[in-house]
């Protein structure tokens, strides 16, 4: 089972995890990221490339399912404006045993940061700024030993 969703509006963590737990018994790993306020950000806007984004996430999920023999993988990414504390992204994986679920979950969030066409713009007071890509994200993606696309 692969489920990919890119949409504005809050991410329903409980509903998404219920979806993946329903199809398996064994191990479910999840990761959720939310907007940090600790550096003065008051608004975060996520722009994406409609169509290409969903295709990139579906390909990534399919890759993880094949590589770790998962029973399922979910990637949900919010787009548009959001506030500190709100969820940006949810990744979840299901497998019979814990190592596969945990490793695949880390893989998905690492690769998502370098392989899917999303762009963040932060607002701090009156200052709006596009977030720069981070070398640490490329390094995290590359530790999985598949070359990341140069994007």
């Amino acid at each position, binding site marked *: 089972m692969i489920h990919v969703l890119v949409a504005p509006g809050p991410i329903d963590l409980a509903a998404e995890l219920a979806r993946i737990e329903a199809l398996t018994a064994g191990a479910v790993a999840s990761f959720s990221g939310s907007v940090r306020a600790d550096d003065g950000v008051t608004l975060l806007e996520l722009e994406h*490339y409609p169509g290409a984004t969903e295709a990139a996430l579906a390909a990534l999920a399919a890759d993880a399912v094949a590589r770790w023999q998962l029973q399922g993988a979910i990637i949900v990414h919010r787009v548009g404006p959001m506030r500190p504390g709100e969820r940006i*992204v949810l990744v979840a994986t299901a497998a019979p045993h814990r190592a596969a679920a945990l490793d695949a979950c880390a893989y998905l969030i690492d690769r998502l*940061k370098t392989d899917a066409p*999303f762009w*963040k713009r932060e607002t701090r007071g009156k200052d709006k700024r596009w977030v720069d890509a981070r070398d640490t994200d490329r390094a995290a993606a590359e530790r999985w030993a598949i070359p990341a*696309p140069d994007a």
Partner: protein
Amino acid sequence: MDLLYFAWVREAVGTGHERIDLPDDVATITALLDWLAARDARYASAFADRTRLRAAIDQRFVGLDASLAGAREVAIFPPVTGG
């Protein structure tokens, strides 16, 4: 051919989408960027530092040296920052 721009590239060129007739002698994304830059100062400014640009042809990530042969949609954008 459809051209798409995202994030600060979109803001710098002043549009997110345009449709162009590609000249026969523009064969790669780099050549396309040169051609667009020669047409308009805003494009020239946006495309000045090519190390800050990434591209996709028909929704697949490619290098800037990729051929435009058969391309229907080309997107130009900064390195991605999702997740």
